[in-house]
């Protein structure tokens, strides 16, 4: 029923394509099949990728390239001009450095928490427990939720009359306005993003655990190997490639964190939860004095970090593959 118009369409395009095939041969057909995807890909990924460098060397508030003036490396100079790199407020572009240092601290804590929680969950789900597939699904549920929904769910829980304060009162503690506090907001962004994504990493680690041959454990059992050593000598090394993937994916995603934080805290209070992507968004689009050139330069700096992380992943996974062969 649904496919009827599609089938008709497929039949209509067949005769002209036969002509094209007779005329150009298999190479021409390969080009035809590649064309739609590569055209969209070229226009919306490759060209912007190249244009990014052009934008980062121009100044002005207008997005049209012909209305922008070439300024060379001035945007980068502005971005990197700092009296003391450890003190964001002494920098010319203090927001960028605040966002960068916030992102760094965020990534360190969030990725550690993420790996700890998803590793424990994967180890537990790897046991022979009743209802294992049910629990695997449970931890995956928040992964499917949209970041906006995630942000709103937690904003509703953390608000003044929210669920968390209800629990605080029931425990005899003072209620708080959590998202008005710089420290609590920061912690909330870490906790909420871990909550939302841990199921994804748990799955990758669980797949790795299930790929470890069972006879290794049986052999260790026969030798009465202490359990901590079994974990250190068998589980961890054989889980290595998956752990490396999880580490780098979590780092890459952590550096780009935006949606759920933007809805939850909006970067505030103050700039306590302002992260890099939001900085780029605000400088490039949202603020009144928008500066697309500066935003492009900042996104190239962020992109460079991501490329380094990805290359690290490639070399890590290659090394662990080689270790596996040995």
């Amino acid at each position, binding site marked *: 029923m649904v496919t009827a118009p599609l089938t008709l369409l497929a039949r209509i395009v067949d005769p002209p394509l036969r002509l094209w095939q007779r005329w150009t041969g298999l190479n021409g057909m390969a080009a035809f099949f590649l064309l739609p995807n590569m055209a969209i890909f070229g226009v919306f990924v490759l060209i912007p990728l190249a244009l990014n460098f052009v934008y980062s060397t121009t100044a002005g508030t207008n997005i049209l390239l012909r209305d922008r003036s070439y300024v060379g490396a001035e945007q980068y100079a502005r971005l990197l001009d700092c009296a003391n790199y450890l003190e964001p407020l002494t920098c010319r572009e203090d927001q960028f450095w605040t966002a960068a240092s916030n992102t760094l601290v965020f990534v360190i804590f969030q990725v550690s928490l993420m790996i700890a929680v998803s590793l424990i969950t994967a180890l537990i789900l790897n046991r022979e427990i009743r209802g294992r597939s049910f629990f695997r699904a449970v931890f995956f549920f928040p992964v499917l939720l949209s970041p906006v929904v995630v942000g709103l769910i937690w904003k*509703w829980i953390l608000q003044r009359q929210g669920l968390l304060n*209800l629990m605080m009162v029931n425990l005899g503690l003072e209620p708080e306005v959590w998202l008005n506090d710089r420290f609590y907001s920061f912690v909330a962004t870490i906790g909420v993003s871990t909550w939302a994504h841990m199921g994804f990493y748990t799955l990758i680690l669980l797949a790795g655990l299930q790929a470890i041959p069972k006879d290794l454990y049986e052999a260790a059992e026969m030798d009465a190997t202490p359990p901590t050593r079994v974990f250190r000598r068998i589980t961890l090394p054989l889980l290595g490639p998956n752990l490396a993937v999880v580490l780098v994916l979590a780092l890459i995603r952590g550096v780009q964190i935006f949606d759920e934080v933007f809805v939850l805290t909006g970067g505030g209070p103050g700039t306590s939860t302002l992260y890099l992507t939001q900085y780029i968004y605000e400088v490039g689009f949202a603020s009144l004095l928008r500066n697309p050139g500066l935003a492009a330069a900042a996104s190239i700096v962020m992109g460079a970090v991501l490329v380094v992380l990805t290359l690290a992943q490639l070399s890590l996974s290659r090394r662990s593959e080689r270790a596996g062969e040995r």
Partner: protein
Amino acid sequence: MSNMTIRQFVGQRRGHGGRWHWTDIATWIWLIGGTILMFGPALWLVMSSFKSPAQLAEFPPTLLPYAQETVMVEGYDDPLPLYTARLEDGTTAELAEIRRIGTNSQMVDPADPGTRIDVNIADRTPIRSIGFATGNYVEPLVANDFPRFLWNSVFVTVMATLITLLTNSMAAFALSKYRFRGRDAVMLLIVATLMVPLSVILVPLYSVVNFTGLLNSLWGVILPTVATPTGVFLLRQYMLTIPDELLEAARMDHASEWQIYWRIVLPLAAPALAVLAIFSVVWRWNDFLWPLIVLSRRELYTLQVGLNSYAGELNVQWHYILAMTVVTMIPVVLVFVFLQRFITTGIAGAGIK
């Protein structure tokens, strides 16, 4: 404490039954606690979405939604709210409130609509029972721009997924079943751009979309997202497993290349296409940053952007926002309930998200 059970805990499965060990208890605490933590927040949101605005402002909040009971009283057009009131003589009675004047409430006994009774508002408490404020759902659906947002989201999701499936599968077919010069280069290019996230090319992408005249159009949201490297990669890996002999046999029978793609390869790749379709639906339904940038006209907002704009208003109407958030969650919850298995195997196999 025996070594066996710890080993089973840290390394592998519990192989035998027997008595409960502390690791079993820890496991179940983790699993049950995890279940509450994973589902609880969403459930709390769903329950809250059925509360009236007055009830949402209460602290401490109740777990379940309550509604004040009302009663029809002879001589009044609208149902009147019911209260338990303490009267001057010390007795209590169930009375209906006609109106409130200052700290005084004019009440009436539903059984005796003729006589009015004045009660101080401190001496009356509302009679409530579990009830659902369905107006939170109905009102935005008929009045606000919510139906518009919903339609925009559905349109973007369906269109983007259809185009993704078609273009990605065509490209994957070429990359898996043809030998041509530069094939490896194309593949490398596609895999390399897996590293280029949207947040890195926001400014130039905006400029390209602006240049092509797609700004403030749903197609400006759809097109930049459809050439997913993940999709091409996933489908190519799957199509590589389809034996070339099938294609050769079809060519013997004078099938055109397009027919081979459409009638042989696509049906055989259906499992991979299904996985990509599920992923694409979830991705596009949940997209936020890019629609936020491209769409500045309110009637074009998708659900996610619309929700964000409601939540950013000066006077936040939580009762509507909560209900609309629940509606936004529905498709994803359906995917979770019915198709979760496909996604989890997809992730475990290819590590995509």
